[in-house]
């Protein structure tokens, strides 16, 4: 009987540990995405993501104009550009509890590319446990740089 009780208690431990973890601020992926520019002919899509401490920004150049005889659809078709016409940058922000303000933990400089999609991704230099969010800027050159910034929500990270 005693052995059975001990085994039952041991079997419960993983479940209890999981419950404790679920009660805490568990890290997961935060994403904010959407079109940050749309003039009908040229659209810029911004996909900003904070996955634990890995930061990703995806810039997409899109258009309403279909290839061949497909139907016109809002910002749905690829609009490939020459090299240097797509640009993206992200900033990782940490909540500074001591000053009651957001601090920039790190930023990756502007990355440029071509085609219809540009990926910018890198781990943040850890700034210690706190709430973190990511801001990403997505731009396409269309006679001038057009696009915009998006920010994810924030979550607690230990790094």
């Amino acid at each position, binding site marked *: 009987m005693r052995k059975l009780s001990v085994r039952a208690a041991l079997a419960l431990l993983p479940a209890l540990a999981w419950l404790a973890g679920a009660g805490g601020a568990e890290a997961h992926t935060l994403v904010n995405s959407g079109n940050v520019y749309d003039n009908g002919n040229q659209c810029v899509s911004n996909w900003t993501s904070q996955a634990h401490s890995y930061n990703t920004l995806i810039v997409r150049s899109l258009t309403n104009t279909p290839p061949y005889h497909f139907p016109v659809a809002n910002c749905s078709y690829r609009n490939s550009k020459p090299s240097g016409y797509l640009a993206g940058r992200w900033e990782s922000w940490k909540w500074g509890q001591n000053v009651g303000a957001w601090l*920039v933990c790190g930023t990756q400089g502007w990355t440029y590319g071509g085609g219809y999609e540009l990926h910018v991704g890198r781990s943040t230099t850890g700034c210690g446990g706190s709430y973190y969010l990511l801001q990403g800027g997505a731009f396409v050159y269309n006679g001038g740089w057009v696009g915009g910034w998006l920010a994810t929500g*924030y979550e607690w990270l230990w790094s």
Partner: protein
Amino acid sequence: MRKRLMLLGTAGLLAVVLGVGYAASVGHEQPTHMPDPAADEVYVAGPDGEALKCNGKLVKVKRSALGGQKPPLTPDQAAQQSVLLQPRVKVARCEKGAKGKETGRAVFVDAGTESP
């Protein structure tokens, strides 16, 4: 008696584990606001992860020092750069003068290359 003790022990263990989980969930001060995208100057994190202080004073940096709101290069200029290497992460550190004394300003350097 043993059964009661076992039940009591299990209940105690449950309370400790749930208590730790609850404390972890409520122990952090939530941000009171979101970053202001229109702010001209911002605080930056230093080597210890806290707000950077230079010469003992909190410093703010211009948003333009982070890279600006829009890309600074034209496509022609950008195409001259290597597209194979993405830029390294930049972090803020106190600027030091000729004799190693802090000037009170912050500069951005490549992460991992900064001096202590």
